[in-house]
């Protein structure tokens, strides 16, 4: 009953928007290439399902590689930076650069360095998604309760033991927040990367499908591809959410994620 009450309002809103959209697109006879009605998008999605699915899989793989790189390298860099304040002050400002760099502008560089295709696309996904992982993990390590640090010091804990038994476990909730943000960004980074760098492979990703639908004025297919891209981001986000819930439900009741 409660679940129904949570799900019902957004579903009703969606149905309303789709109905208005459908009737406007038909009633005003808007050309199909400008704004296809939802029914046309659904038909395109059904008709092109195999190519949409294979494109989504290509993009998903690149996004997952990028996300995995972010998770590993971002966490690693956060640990290194947390080891010393001077190091953090020296390096951290440059990690902000990763956040602000216009990925479309440097994507050609990525093609030069990594070759066109999967690798450049994955690196693009990595660059776009790594900053929240670094910032949140570092923040989590930094905000360990001072009394707990004192206790570890009192009992003669080594630097290593303090990292493994205190700092990293304490940082998990906020690191998970960073990973949730990174999951959505990785898909965006992969699609933008594909716009520039995704050409060489025989099987193209969603970014390529979006570009080619646009060139052929297949706006219905373009909408379907965008829908698939959003679904991909949501799926990855939900997976991280689930992992976070499973990890934290017992010891951080207040910090367990709400979906």
């Amino acid at each position, binding site marked *: 009953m409660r679940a129904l009450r949570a799900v019902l309002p957004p579903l009703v809103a969606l149905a309303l928007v789709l109905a208005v959209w459908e009737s406007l697109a038909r009633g005003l006879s808007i050309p199909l290439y400008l704004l296809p009605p939802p029914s046309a998008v659904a038909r395109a999605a059904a008709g092109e399902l195999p190519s949409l699915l294979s494109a989504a899989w290509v993009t998903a793989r690149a996004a997952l590689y990028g996300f995995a790189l972010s998770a590993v390298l971002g966490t690693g860099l956060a640990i290194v930076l947390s080891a010393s304040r001077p190091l953090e002050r020296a390096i951290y400002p440059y990690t902000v650069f990763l956040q602000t760099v216009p990925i479309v502008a440097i994507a050609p560089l990525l093609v030069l360095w990594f070759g066109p295709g999967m690798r450049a696309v994955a690196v693009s996904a990595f660059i776009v998604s790594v900053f929240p992982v670094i910032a949140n993990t570092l923040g989590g390590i930094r905000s360990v309760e001072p*009394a707990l640090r004192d206790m570890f010091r009192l009992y003669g804990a080594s630097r290593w033991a303090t990292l493994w038994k205190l700092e990293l476990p304490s940082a998990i909730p906020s690191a998970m927040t960073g990973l949730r943000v990174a999951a959505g960004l990785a898909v965006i980074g992969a699609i933008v990367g594909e716009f520039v760098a995704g050409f060489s492979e025989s099987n193209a990703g969603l970014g390529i499908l979006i570009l080619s639908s646009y060139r052929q004025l297949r706006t219905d297919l373009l909408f379907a591809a965008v829908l698939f891209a959003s679904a991909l981001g949501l799926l990855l986000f939900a997976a991280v959410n689930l992992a976070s819930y499973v990890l934290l439900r017992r010891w951080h009741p207040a910090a367990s994620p709400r979906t």
Partner: protein
Amino acid sequence: MPPTPATERAPPTTARGVRVSISGLVRTFASGSKVIDGLDLDIAAGSFVALLGPSGCGKSTLLRLIAGLDRPDGGKIVRGEPASPPRTPALAFVFQDAHLLPWRTVLENAALPLELAGVGRAARHDAAIAALSQVGLTDAMTLVPSELSGGMRMRVSLARALVTQPSLLLLDEPFAALDEMTRQRLDDQLRELWGKLGMTVVFVTHSVDEAAYLAERAVVLSQRPARIVLDRTSSLPATRAVALRTEQAFSSEAAALRSALERGGA
């Protein structure tokens, strides 16, 4: 001393505690304000001393200095060596909140100090079970902190402090956040443990009643910079129970501490 029935527990006989000598202690904060300015205090081995003072008077700073968590700017603190040098740290600290690791079970939390000291798994679990049984928590060993009440969490914190069999136990307003009933129960439990184990206990509090009820000796500190307003050996019997809190002897003991606290500028 009133005659004590044979069944009641005598004050510590097997003194495992250490002596703490503080002389000319000075601690200045970065802002330049003196928190402690030339303090002398000698704490006998195996004694139970309450440090009583107004909020912000520097009593917590004093405790951190004794623990070695903070360095003095002048003077010195000499902590005696325990009779038989232990394998594990001889000092334990209980903070104002329980400060447990939320991802660990009660058992693993209590065993943490031994784990950090490199004691093997089986040995540290045995010691943790023993410490948990001393605070009456053996039923809760597999639970995690979020499943415990505030009083239970504090008892785990106490067990964690006891697991290394410390010769010096420092407590910084440990039960201040608990409700009155739980607090009294833990006060009793702490006194009982001290009677049984005989370590030196230094207990920081801002509660006159708690200081009067718990300690063999109460040291009342003034407003900052902290100096000693009153150093009083308790006239209460060694065996104490809740009923004592309503007796005349307790009231006059508390009154003496309260007036000293007021003299010190609370």
